């Protein structure tokens, strides 16, 4: 790099990395690309080891090896994970590939070893024009000027990440609640870090990346306490001037106080009832929306509930989780089946209280085999057994479970499930944090459900309170009685003396 360029970078006063090269001057990019794979080839011709990093990432593999308590080392990913939104990716690859960083993903299979299938542009496009086509197995929209995009690549911007991560679950903010399109250009009151009227940070400022391994992951799939993006990276473990507040950081995660509400701009899905799916009007599927335009009913998916400006729920979390994986059997039907159990308790040194969005659902299960069902949902045409076309639970379950290689009894029941989504974004400004007495209060505090520890202001011993009150009352009563008697005697004596 010429010295002049370096000094130019620092002279601008920006601490963010500046562009080391101008891609639009590279000869190899001055051509008309007919396939996206050609671009990938051009990228690799200079960045000649990066593709090996990408191909080790879970953005590419859609799975990773995790150690799960009481289960051992398991490969977890789209192949075996179950959620309580669209349930799973299996059999729906064509449309799901819209959010894979690969090209050429079809139901028939995908070559995870062909580096040409890496979609560099989806993350590195800096023109904000790149978009994947609908149900094209991950290929870009054919109308795009790929050459122009290839000449304008760089560090991922909010749009690169958000185009997938803001729309998980098939719509804006459906899954996370704290990651949605409002974060493309938020105000500071929505997210203090990303606010365009503030420090204007992008995702990868916190989700620091080394060799395409991006820090931070979500515990809908992750199980281990590793490679996390933490507030402490910048803020340290004792960021307050006040020691009393700093002591909280031992047991309370930053997010717990600093994210008082989530889904600040648009609603997020809180409940999904698959049991209501399949109703038709005049033989046709229909939809119902609320006043904000959120679907409250879809024949293909069932009934939904949404929430905006939600107070999180709170759980102990030590950084490890266990997961319901495809084929697991459930035993207790009196309580909801938790699809990702976040571990931790007060007694756990590693655990802190974190805020979560709990997504609750009623979803199909096989009551005989006691497994959750992975139905075939998507189909191109009617008659293929896809629920979204044929509305036949038994058939779509049979096909889906067969594709998953799992037994199916032929019966479909509906069971309650829960998923825990840690809330990490939409951090509020300093003045808008959770106040002491929102937790330190006797009744209905935010932490009312966490009862495995003593919290000042909330907890007390019933007998001590009653005994203490009785002691004080008795003392006051004794004093009043004694004093009155003294006064009475004194007055009588004085009168007597006067007589």
């Amino acid at each position, binding site marked *: 790099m010429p010295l002049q360029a370096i000094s130019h970078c620092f002279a601008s006063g920006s601490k963010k990395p500046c562009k080391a090269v101008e891609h639009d001057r590279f000869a190899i990019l001055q051509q008309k690309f007919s396939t996206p794979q050609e671009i990938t080839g051009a990228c690799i011709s200079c960045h000649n080891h990066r593709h090996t990093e990408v191909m080790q990432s879970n953005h590419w593999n859609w799975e990773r090896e995790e150690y799960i308590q009481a289960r051992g080392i398991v490969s977890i990913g789209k192949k075996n994970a179950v959620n309580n939104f669209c349930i799973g990716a299996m059999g729906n690859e064509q449309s799901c590939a819209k959010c894979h960083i690969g090209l050429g993903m079809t139901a028939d299979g995908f070559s995870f070893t062909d580096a040409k299938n890496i979609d560099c542009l989806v993350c590195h496009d800096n023109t904000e024009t790149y978009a994947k086509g609908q149900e094209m197995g991950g290929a870009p929209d054919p109308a795009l000027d790929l050459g122009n995009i290839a000449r304008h690549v760089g560090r991922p911007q909010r749009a690169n990440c958000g185009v997938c991560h803001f729309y998980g679950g098939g719509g804006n903010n459906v899954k996370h609640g704290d990651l949605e399109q409002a974060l493309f250009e938020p105000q500071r009151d929505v997210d203090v870090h990303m606010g365009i009227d503030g420090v204007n940070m992008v995702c990868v400022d916190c989700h620091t990346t080394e060799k395409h391994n991006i820090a931070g992951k979500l515990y809908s799939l992750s199980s281990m306490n590793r490679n996390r993006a933490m507030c402490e990276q910048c803020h340290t473990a004792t960021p307050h001037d*006040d020691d*009393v507040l700093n*002591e909280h950081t*031992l047991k309370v995660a930053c997010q717990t106080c600093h994210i008082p509400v989530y889904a600040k701009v648009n609603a997020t899905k809180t409940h999904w009832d698959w049991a209501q799916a399949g109703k038709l009007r005049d033989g046709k599927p229909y939809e119902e929306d609320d006043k904000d335009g959120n679907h409250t009913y879809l024949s293909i998916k069932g009934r939904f509930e949404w929430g905006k400006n939600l107070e999180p729920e709170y759980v102990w979390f030590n950084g490890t989780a266990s997961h319901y994986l495809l084929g697991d059997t459930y035993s207790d039907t009196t309580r909801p089946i938790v699809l990702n159990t976040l571990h931790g308790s*007060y*007694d756990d*040194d590693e655990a802190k209280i974190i805020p979560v969005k709990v997504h609750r659902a009623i979803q199909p299960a096989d009551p005989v085999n006691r497994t959750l069902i992975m139905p075939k949902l998507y189909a191109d045409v009617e008659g293929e057994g896809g629920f979204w076309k044929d509305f036949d639970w038994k058939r779509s379950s049979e096909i889906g479970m067969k594709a998953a290689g799992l037994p199916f009894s032929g019966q479909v029941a509906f069971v309650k499930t829960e998923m825990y989504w840690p809330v990490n974004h939409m951090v509020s400004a300093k003045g808008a944090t959770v*106040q*002491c*007495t929102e937790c*330190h*209060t*006797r009744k209905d505090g935010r932490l009312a459900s966490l009862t495995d*520890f*003593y919290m*000042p*202001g*909330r*907890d*007390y*011993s019933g007998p*001590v*309170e009653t*005994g*203490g009150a009785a*002691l*004080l009352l008795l*003392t*006051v009563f*004794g*004093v009043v009685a*004694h*004093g009155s*008697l*003294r006064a009475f*005697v*004194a007055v009588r*004596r004085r009168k007597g003396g006067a007589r």
Partner: protein
Amino acid sequence: MNGNRVYVYRAFERFWHWSQSVLILFLAVTGFEIHGAITFFGFHQAVIYHNTAAYALIVLIAFAIFWHLATGEWKQYVPTATHIKAQTNYYIFGIFRNVPHPTKKTALSKLNPLQRLVYFALKVLVIPVIVTSGLLYMLYRYPHRHGIEALNIDTLHTIAIIHTVGAFLLIAFIVAHIYLITTGTTVLSNLKAMLTGYEDAAHMGQHDTSETPSQITDKEVQS
């Protein structure tokens, strides 16, 4: 000043008494706010005030202990069985009949047998319990934070409840104490003595049953 007054409470003693009483009342208000029972300063301020006042009280107690040891005044608090019945009878019966105090207040024996008993219990039981539990309440995380596993306290539960018990006992004491100071020779004589240090000698000693007959008069003190 006429020489018929007795110097009972020395300057440090009065300073100790009043600053302690202010601190304890302040700790009670802030403490019960932290306890969730009342709202006054706001929780955050209450915590800061309570902790600061707690350290102030501990410093004061340290000075008071030193003073008591250095002056030998600690002997005042040694409980005695003598006249305890007489004193009890006085509060239950005699006081209503305008009978004089059975024991006499002097500079060398300013506490009656019941006071000795109660203050002794305060000093060896209630205060140490509330101070120790309070310190643990504030500091229990520190061994943990510094990785001293052996000193780990797993829960605040026991500490907090003991601290609360101490608080109730102290408040009950204060209520009774504030009333009992009116049971001096006149309603205000005890209060006046704790404010000025002097008690009118005319009011003292008519029925002296105390074993410590000597009195320090105003004159003697000033000389």
